[in-house]
């Protein structure tokens, strides 16, 4: 007998195993082993799920430390010229990009290209070190850039002009050579044949006949948008892990906000309910799709806002109704909704640090920072003061005349920029489409500025896009009249 076993035999006896103590000891061993396994396996599984996000979180925090920060941004705002602004960025994360532009004494257009490349590099870096499941999700989400690029090409082909590759951000699978090849297309058929084998080729092919019949660009644009949103939503909604669930919240709010913006914009432009319904994304997170569609029938913007009053969005934008009534622009609503999306994502990323959220939050913040820097550079080239530039950043658009937002100021300060704006309105109507090339040759303005100004015109509700091309709104008409009167005087 083994030395000292007597006490254990007594214990076995107490438990009723006097005859077969070996069975007792075997059972104890099995129980101990099973208990250990039952405890340790979930822990290991949990660690395997959380650990990659823990590392990611630390990496993201380190990358967040490289945001340029308020003092540097103020220094940028105070710069006297575009060159000085780029030199000021030399000691930041953007230094290697500005160096490239400064070394070749290139201008703003090249600065825009390198900053677009910078954003692409940020996405590539995030995708490189993301855990596999998060990578799949982010990759699908980034396809919005491919959609944006394709829409630019579609618009150019529709208008019969060459698309400007420099304004495209080559994030996603469609790289610059591919985009260049697509941009060379002279017709929709050619573009779709070049896209054959890609997911977009199939989508566009289904709507080509309809487009050819009606020559209405929104048919193709809307097809791409719907394809993107449905695909991404089906991915985020399908049995995802705890770490990815937060993306569903973010993307759901994103879609809701896109739909509200569409509703507000089109309502402010008096677009028919049928057209609005066609442009809404029939997916809802906090707003059910049927409510969205019913809001398309709303009489005016106030009715749209009261229709979403019970949602988080209604609460925040209803406070801005007096501002809207004063300036007659939906930009304050759009700005507030964008802020809400960013704040919500930041809150989620703090609440769920071991999830995809810090990563998405970082991408959004970085995208904003790059956009702000690009706006500052544009403003510096145009000679704006730091106060004007700050105001333009707040409005989220680079507008030549901020005063256009204030009707009283339009009467008191009719400067050259407003005249230029008026000519652009007139010309955009004259060309009857988004023919930026035509306007470019007539005004002598570079195409990126023409596009920027046309975008502003649309944002400010001076022109609307219809099936037949651009059309002046009532507000646009009154501005054109005002300019003509001043010119006559």
């Amino acid at each position, binding site marked *: 007998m083994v030395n000292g076993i007597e006490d254990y035999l007594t214990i076995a006896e107490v438990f009723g195993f006097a005859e077969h103590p070996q069975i007792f000891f075997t059972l104890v061993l099995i129980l101990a082993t099973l208990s250990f396994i039952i405890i340790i396996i979930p822990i290991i599984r949990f660690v395997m799920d959380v650990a990659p996000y823990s590392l990611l*979180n630390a990496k993201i925090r380190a990358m967040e*430390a490289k945001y340029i920060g308020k003092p540097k941004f103020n220094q940028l705002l105070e710069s006297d010229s575009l060159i000085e602004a780029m030199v000021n960025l030399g000691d930041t994360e953007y230094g290697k990009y500005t160096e490239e532009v400064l070394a070749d004494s290139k201008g703003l257009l090249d600065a825009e290209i390198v900053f677009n490349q910078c954003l692409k590099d940020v996405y590539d870096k995030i995708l490189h070190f993301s855990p596999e499941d998060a990578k799949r999700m982010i990759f699908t989400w980034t396809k919005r850039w491919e959609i944006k690029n394709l829409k630019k090409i579609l618009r150019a082909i529709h208008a019969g002009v060459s698309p400007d590759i420099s304004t495209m951000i080559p994030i996603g699978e469609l790289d610059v050579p591919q985009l260049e090849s697509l941009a060379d297309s002279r017709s929709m058929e050619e573009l779709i044949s070049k896209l054959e084998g890609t997911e977009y080729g199939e989508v566009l092919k289904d709507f080509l006949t309809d487009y050819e019949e009606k020559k209405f660009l929104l048919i193709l644009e809307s097809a791409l948008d719907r394809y993107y949103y449905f695909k991404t939503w089906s991915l985020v909604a399908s049995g995802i892990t705890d770490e990815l669930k937060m993306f569903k919240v973010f993307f759901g709010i994103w879609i809701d906000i896109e739909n509200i913006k569409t509703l507000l914009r089109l309502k402010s432009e008096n677009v028919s309910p049928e057209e609005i319904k066609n442009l809404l994304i029939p997916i809802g997170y906090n707003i059910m799709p049927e409510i969205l569609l019913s809001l398309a029938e709303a009489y005016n913007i106030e009715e749209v806002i009261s229709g979403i009053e019970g949602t988080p969005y209604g609460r925040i934008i209803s406070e801005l109704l007096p501002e809207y009534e004063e300036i007659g622009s939906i930009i304050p609503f759009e700005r507030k909704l964008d802020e809400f999306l960013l704040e919500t994502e930041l809150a989620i990323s*703090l*609440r769920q*640090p071991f999830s995809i959220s810090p990563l998405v939050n970082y991408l959004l913040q970085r995208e904003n920072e790059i956009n702000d820097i690009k706006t500052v550079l544009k403003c510096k080239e145009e000679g704006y003061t730091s106060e004007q530039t700050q105001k333009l950043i707040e409005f989220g658009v680079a507008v030549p005349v901020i005063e256009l937002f204030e009707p009283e100021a339009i009467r008191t300060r009719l400067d050259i920029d407003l005249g230029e704006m008026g000519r652009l309105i007139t010309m955009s109507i004259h060309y009857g489409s988004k023919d930026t090339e035509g306007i470019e040759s007539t005004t002598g303005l570079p195409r990126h500025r023409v596009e920027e100004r046309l975008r502003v015109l649309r944002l400010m509700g001076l022109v609307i896009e219809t099936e037949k091309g651009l059309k002046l709104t009532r507000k646009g008409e009154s501005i054109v009249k005002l300019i003509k009167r001043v010119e006559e005087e």
Partner: protein
Amino acid sequence: MPLDVNLALAAVGAGLAMGIAAVGSGIGVGITGAAGATVISESPEKFGVTIVFSALPQTQAIYGLLTAILILLGTGLITKAPREGFSALMAMASLGAGIAVGMAGLSAIGQGIAAASGIGATSENPEVFGKGMVFSVLPETQAIYGLLTAILLLVFAGIIGTMGKAVSTMVGLATIGAGASVGLAGLSGIGQGITAASGIGAAAKEPATMGKSIVLAVMSETFAIFGLLIALLIMYGTGLFG
């Protein structure tokens, strides 16, 4: 060297103390170290901070090592002079001590998660180093409770020192229960680590949330305290001390 079953079981206890605690520390340090490496790739100057945070989850393995050495000293195995009269009570108390320190040592996983968040937050803003440390240290308490229980078991079972009492062999089984109570309750350190990690993030972005985040993170502590309380009651109730 004659080795009876009691000494062998005590050695198993020493092995559990060291082995399980090392699993916890290994995973914890692994998480922190990997987080540190990713941060250093962005900011090499953060190496010092990374080292400090990475050291935190190592303590659980040190507690395991300490307990294992105490057991081996108590049994005399470390000096190749097995102790005469090493009873079944002592053997089971060693097992209980091993389970207490070992399982509570798994709190290092939670500490690793919190420390990884501390590394990230400090790399973003060096001023939150102190806050990061406060949060990261929280899951340490579970391991300390495990060590405390282990030492009490070793002392009152007479494995170390001269305070051992003559109690029945069945009390030995109860000591395993005491060890399991504090050891398993120590797993709450993992939950505490996750809460602490979120707390670090919140306090770094919004310093005013520090107090509230601490309160939330400390909530997981209650389970560890319950575990310690039950372990002490088992020891007291079975007459091991008091």
